[in-house]
C-alpha cells in the first residue's frame, strides 16, 4: 500500500515562490557552512545578512519515502519537520505523543528500523527508506501486542499520555535484552517520564511481557 501526501500549500501554487529558488537556497546555506568551517569558526550565529536571506527563501521541502506500520508513504515535507510532527500532523498518527519536543521525556518514542528513537529529535527527511513502527502498528487486528496487554493488566498507566512511548520503549528494552532484573529495567526505561508515577507497574508490565517472550 502506498500513499502520496503533499504539504498544505504555503503559497498559491500558480505564483512563483518569492525570492530565489530552493536550489539557490541550498547553495547559499552550503556556502555559509563552508565559510564557517574554512574560517575555523564554531558559532551558531549566521553571518550578518544570512538570516534575512534564509528567511526570504525558507521552507524548502523534500520528498521522502518511508514505511510506517508496514504502509509505504511518499511525502513532500518541509525539511524542518520532525518524524514526530510528520506522524502527528501529516499522517494522522497521533498515538506518538509530544511531551517536551526536546528528547527529554520519551513520550514520542517509536521504533526506527527496529531501534527505539525519540521521534521529536529525528528529522523526517533523513528517514528515506526507513521502517517506522508506532503504537498504532503493534496490535494484530483486535489482538494486542503482549506488552500492550501487560500494561492494561498491570494498570501501568493513568492519564495514558506517556503510555505509547513507554510501550515502544519497553519493546526496545526487551529486544535489547535489558530485562535481567527490576533494576536493569528501571535503568533502561528511565528515558521515559511518567508524571502520574506508574513506574512500579511499568516495570512489572515489561517484566511480564519479557517473561512471556
Amino acid at each position, binding site marked *: 500500500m502506498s500513499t502520496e501526501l503533499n504539504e498544505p500549500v504555503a503559497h498559491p501554487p500558480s505564483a512563483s515562490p518569492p525570492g530565489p529558488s530552493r536550489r539557490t537556497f541550498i547553495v547559499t546555506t552550503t556556502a555559509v557552512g563552508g565559510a564557517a568551517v574554512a574560517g575555523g569558526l564554531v558559532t551558531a550565529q549566521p553571518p550578518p545578512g544570512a538570516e534575512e536571506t534564509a*528567511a526570504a527563501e525558507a521552507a524548502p521541502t523534500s520528498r521522502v519515502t518511508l514505511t510506517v506500520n508496514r504502509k509505504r508513504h511518499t511525502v513532500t515535507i*518541509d525539511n524542518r519537520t520532525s518524524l514526530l510532527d510528520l506522524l502527528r500532523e501529516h499522517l494522522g498518527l497521533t498515538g506518538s505523543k509530544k511531551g517536551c519536543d*526536546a528528547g527529554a521525556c520519551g513520550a514520542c518514542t517509536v521504533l526506527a528500523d527496529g531501534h527505539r528513537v525519540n521521534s521529536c529529535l529525528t528529522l523526517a527527511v533523513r528517514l528515506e527508506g526507513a521502517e517506522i513502527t508506532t503504537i498504532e502498528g503493534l496490535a494484530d487486528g483486535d489482538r494486542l501486542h503482549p506488552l500492550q496487554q501487560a500494561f492494561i493488566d498491570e494498570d501501568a498507566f*493513568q*492519564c495514558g499520555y506517556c503510555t505509547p512511548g513507554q510501550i515502544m520503549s519497553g519493546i526496545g528494552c526487551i529486544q535489547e535484552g535489558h530485562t535481567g532484573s527490576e533494576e536493569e529495567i528501571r535503568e533502561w526505561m528511565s528515558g521515559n517520564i511518567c*508524571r502520574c*508515577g506508574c513506574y512500579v*507497574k511499568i516495570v512489572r508490565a515489561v517484566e511480564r511481557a519479557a517473561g512471556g517472550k
Partner: protein
Amino acid sequence: MSPQPQSAVGAPLSRVDGRLKVTGKAKYAAEHHVDTVVHAVVVDSSVGRGRITGVDTRAALAQPGVLKVISHLNAPKLAYRENGSSNNPPGERLHVFQDDKVHFHGQPVAVVLATTLEAAQHGASLVQVRYDAERPSTDLARAPAHDPVTYARGDADKAMRSAAVRLEMTYRTARTHQNAMEPHATIARWDGNRLTVWDKTQWVGGTQTELAAVFGIPRDAVRVISPFVGGAFGSGLRAWPHVTIAALAARVAGRPVKLALTRRQMYFGTGYRPAYECGVRLGSDRRGRLTAMVHDIKAETSTYEDFQEDVLAAGQMLYSMPNVRQAYRRVPLDVNTPLYMRGPGFATAAHVIESAMDELAHHLGIDPVELRRRNEPAADESTGLPFSTRRLRECYTTGAREFGWQRRNPEPRSTRDGDWLIGTGMAAGVYETVRKAAKARVRLDADGTALVEAATSDMGPGTYTSMTQVAADALGLALRNVTFRLGDTLMPPTPPHSGSMTMASVGSAVQAGSDTVRRQAIKLAVEDVRSPLHGANPGDVVVRGGRLHLKDNPARGETYQRLLSRNERTHLETVGSFEPPSGPERFSLYAYGATFAEVAVDARLGLVRVRRVLGVYDAGRIISPKLADSQALGGIVGGIGTALLEHTVTDHRDGRIVNANLADYLVPVNADVPDLRAIYLEGEDREADPIGVKGLGELVHIGVAPALTNAVFHATGRRIRELPITAEVLL
C-alpha cells in the same frame, strides 16, 4: 447505600479505557481532527516587567505559510467580563493582547498563525519585540506582602512563653510545576457566533464560562470538548491566556486554530505550586502534649491576582492543642499567577507540621508515631464538630506493623549499609473531603445497555472506569454493557475535576441517576400485568446481569430487554443529581493517611536514594481498588519529586525561569522509584456522601515529602528545612 448487589464496585478491574490508551487511539486536546485548521505559536515576553514599545512582524510575515501575526497593536478588543464561575483568584486576570504592559517574563505578547507548524514556529522566532524593560521583583524573601489571612484560638503567644518545651523553625519549599506529560493545547473553531474548543482542561464548564466572559457571548454559545486529559495535577483548572489566544486567533483568521504550548511555555503559561516560607513555633509539655502552635506563612502570587489556597486548615485540626495562631501572607511578585497543584495547601502544611513534629519527637526522645498518638484530638478543635470518620490511629498501627517500624533504632545516623547511611521516617497526611453539586444523565436502552454521561474529566485517576462500576451495579448490568462518557459541555454539569471531589460528587450523581432508572424499570414491571413481577413489592426486586427478579426468588423475573420491548419503550432515561446537604456541616470531613519511608544517603556524595515507601490511607470506600492503588503509588512518586528533585529556578535579575524544561527541572524517573506499597483501610464514610467515599487523589500525595525528609534526618543527623533536598544541599 444501594440495595443492589455490588459486584463491580470494589472489584480490582482494569481500566475500561485501557485499550484506547495502549493503542494510541485516545484523543488528547491537540489531536482532534478539525478541517482547515491552522497552527498558532505564541511569542512570549523576554523581559520580566515593562512596556512593549514595538512589534516588528515583517520578517515573520515574509515567511511562506505565515498568515498573520497578532499582538496588542492589532488584536480586537475583548469584553473580559467578570466570571463568577471560575477558579480565577481575586484581582483581574491577564488580558491578552489588550495593552502594552508586561507583567512577567514569558507573558504572551504576540501569536503567529501559519499553515504549517514549522512555519508558525519559525515565524514566531522572527517576531522582533522591543521593550522598555524594568527590573522585576521575583524574590519571595525580599518583597513586601499583602495583609495576612489570620486565625487564632486561645492565646498562642502566652502559651508559648509558658511552654516547657519550645521549638522555632523556618521551612522553605520551592516553587514546583505540575508538569503533566501532555502540554496544554487548544483547538478553537468559530461557526458564526458559536465557538467550539477542544481543550486540555479539568473542567469543561470552567473553560466554557471563561471564554463566554472573555468574548462577551452567552455561555451556551461556547462548547468545550475534552474527552482525554494527559495529566494535569491542577494546571487544567483555569482557562489560561493561551485558550483565549486560540479563540481570538481563530476569529481573526476566520479559520480553526490549533495552539499547543511548548514545554518551556508551560512554566509561565499555566500555574504552579507557589514557593513558601513558613515560620513555625511549637510549644509542648515534657511528655510531648502540644500546648501551642504559631504559623507565619508567606507564599508568592502575581501582582494582578491574589492566589490563595488552604494552607491553614491542617494546622487547626490535625492535632489537639488549645492555642493556635496563624498568619498567611501572599507576596505579590512579577510572576504569572500560581494555581492549585496536587494536594493544594495541605501538602505544604503537612510538610511544615510533620517536619516540626519530627523535630519535637527527636528533641523529646519520643517515638514519632507515639508523639502523634499523644496528640490525637477527640473532635475537630477548629469547629468543635465530631469527625465523620478519623482512623489515623489505625493508619499508624497498620503502617508501623507492615513497615517494621519497631525495628528502628531511634538514634540518627545509627544505621549504615556500606557507604550508605540508612534512615526511616514517617508523617501523617490529611485532606478535606470535598463534594459539590453534580449531575449525570443515565439512559437504559431496550437492548439492555446503558449510556451514562456527565461533563466531568478523567486526567488519570480513572473516572471512566469508576463511574462505569457505580452505574453497572446500580443498574444491575454487566460492566461491558455500560458506557460512561465525559468531557463535553453538552453533558450534564459537574464541578471541577479536582480536590478529590469527583468520585464523591459525580459518583453520587451517577448512583442517583442509575437508582432512578432502575426503579423506573421495576415500577414498569410490577405494574405490568404481563410481567412475571406483576404485583410484587418494588422493594423486593433487584436487578442482576440485566435481569429483574425477586430478591428471595430469583426464578421470578425478566430482563430489561423483554420488559422494555414489550412495553414499546426504546429507553428509560433520567438526569441524576447530587447536592451536598444544605446548611452548616454536622461533621468534620477529612481523609487521613500515614506515610512511612526508608532512604539511603551516600555519606560522602550526599546522594539520596529512596529504598521503600508505604502509605496507609483512611479514604472511605474504595470504588476501584486496582486504580486506587496506582493513584496512591503515583502520589508517592510525586512526593519523591517534591522532596528530592523538583525546583523551579528563577533568575531574579530578569525574572526568567532558567530550568523551564524537563532536562533541567527534574522529576522522578523509573530509576528513582523503588517498590512502593499502598494500603487502604477497609470501610466507608456514610456521612460524607451517598456512596461513602472520601476522595484520595490529593491525600496520597500529602505527607510523602516530610516522611522522606524525616528519613533523611534519621539517616544523616542533618535537618534540612528547605525543599528539595538535593545532593548539593547535603554535601
